[in-house]
């Protein structure tokens, strides 16, 4: 029964096409297993061998990996969502309704939204794990800092995405959040010391149309400009920055001596 399948697999593995993609044999012995990791762009993020204690689930909780997995899930479901969504007030809400009603297997938004929440939980737990194991200590100080920026960006990703459904939950949550910008010292209309920021002759530089909240919303309240701005931040700007920082984060894990363990 298995014999025809096995010989078919052996044939596939002997073809020139297969051997041009995977430049090593079946990973069954030490040499080919090392080759499998070294000759693959994605797997070579890992070293070829790791401390046994370092990959125990009770040590890592797999939370960093889960955060990255959720980033990928968010990217894929997000790209699919972009096919159906127009970031203007006239259409945004209707497009979300349409996603529910007309799109086959209409779970896209559910996966995207719950995945975003799960990503926040996972990244917090990852931070807690790294803290509790003291893994931020030398030589990993810098990578911890990169991780903190990634944490902030992840929360900003979730925050900018929160506006896009354009329902009551969305605009008022963003209103509450962006009202903080109005209170920024020196740069917000309702913040302290803003009067000090002025040109000679008493011309105020920070006005209701040039303060920190205006920069975020492109308006004095959450409106169509804010929707477009959050859409671009959410779909283009922040993911690009995240992707670069994730690359640095992963690369530095290896450069800083791999996964941590007792010294």
């Amino acid at each position, binding site marked *: 029964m298995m014999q025809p399948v096995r010989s078919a697999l052996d044939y596939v593995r002997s073809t020139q096409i297969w051997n041009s993609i995977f430049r090593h044999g079946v990973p069954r012995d030490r040499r080919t297993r090392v080759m499998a990791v070294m000759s693959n762009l994605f797997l070579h993020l890992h070293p070829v061998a790791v401390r046994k204690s370092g990959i125990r689930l009770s040590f890592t909780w797999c939370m960093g990996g889960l955060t990255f997995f959720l980033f990928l899930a968010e990217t894929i479901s997000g790209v699919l969502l972009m096919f159906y969504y127009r970031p203007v007030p006239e259409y945004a809400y209707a497009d979300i309704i349409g996603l529910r009603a007309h799109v086959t297997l209409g779970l896209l938004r559910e996966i995207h939204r719950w995945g975003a929440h799960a990503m926040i939980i996972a990244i917090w737990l990852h931070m807690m794990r790294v803290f509790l194991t003291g893994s931020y200590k030398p030589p990993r100080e810098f990578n911890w800092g990169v991780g903190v920026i990634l944490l902030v960006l992840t929360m900003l990703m979730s925050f900018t995405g929160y506006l896009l459904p354009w329902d009551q939950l969305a605009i008022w949550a963003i209103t509450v959040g962006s009202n903080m910008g109005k*209170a920024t010292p020196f740069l917000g209309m*309702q913040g302290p010391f803003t009067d000090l920021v002025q040109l000679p002759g008493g011309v105020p530089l920070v006005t209701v149309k040039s303060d920190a909240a205006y920069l975020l919303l492109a308006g004095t309240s959450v409106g169509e400009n804010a929707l477009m701005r959050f859409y671009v931040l959410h779909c283009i700007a922040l993911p690009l920055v995240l992707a670069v920082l994730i690359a640095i984060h992963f690369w530095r894990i290896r450069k800083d001596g791999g996964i941590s363990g*007792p010294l």
Partner: protein
Amino acid sequence: MTQFIIPTLASGGAGKPFFTNPAIEKIKDLVNALSVPEFSLPIFTVGFILMMLWYRKWTKPKVIIALTAGACVFYFGSMLIDYNYLLILKKPDNVPITIMLLAMGLCLWVAFRQAAINDARLEAGLPLPDADKEDKVLVWPDLVYTEMICMVLASAALVLWSIVLRAPLESPANPAGPPNPSKAPWYFLGLQEMLVYFDPWIAGVILPGLIVTGLIAMPYIDINPKGNGFYTIAQRKFALWVWLFGFLILWVVLIVFGTFLRGPNWNFFGPYEYWDSHLQVPLTNINLSDYFWVFGLGQPLPKNPFAREAVGIVFTAFWCLALPVVLARTVMYRMYNQMGSTRFYIMAFHLVIMAMLPLKMVLRWLFTLKYFVYLPEFNLNI
């Protein structure tokens, strides 16, 4: 489907709990009374202290099973005895909070359990279970397969979550009609909860900014070389106490308050209380300047704002700028000598600002203090 079944099962009809009797109502009243921040935050803090001190006891499997069972019966069982609590817990956007609390509890147990084992071995002079650096495995297959299994399980969990629970969608955006309460996304509700005690420029800008700078600075401030790469409590007491208090109490607990217990007009409601949008809570908070001039000296407030707020300005300046120096010269002099002045003052500055939040909370609860410094002339209220 679940959205239909669960409330029907639990409520036995609209608005009524599944079952109730006078004794349960008494307990509910007691829990409601104890859940106000002035009682529950100290209770949580005591719980945190016990968690840190008794980590060798509560992490034993038998104890943790009993604790978890009790907590889950209280947390989930309450859905059966109270309709308001059920409404809060089954709100789709609140489901992540429940998942976070469960995951965080599990992770804390796993961490503290290993810390207890590691600390006991270190005290007995034994090597750590994972001390052997040369004990290595190949990434293919060990790590790659672990990752793949995690990925499959996570995908399944995410799809299941998405099938069971629809993503929330309310009525279309109406710029003229804010809902009551208006809440930020749940992961920012700790900050929104801080707005009760501080103005937006502190709660929304300064404090989050200092959280980020403090986190980034942490590896450079914490020069304790011990406890690198394994779970331990005994070797890093100061770092763990401060950081976990900040994360668990001042961040996670405040998020739970903000999501579960803050209702219309941001009034506080116990878990079993109806969110009454007509509830009026009198604003009785008093500024430090009023306490000093009116109640203390029995005279009207001075006209000059800086004279009026002198006490508050001196106090705030002392707390933020002088207190780190005092700490360096007194209780923390050993730490100061080890760390050097730059590291110490960066650490101490973040520490006193963080401590300002519980300080303000306690003063609010005890003396209804509104502001240390009240300078509306400059939008500068502290």
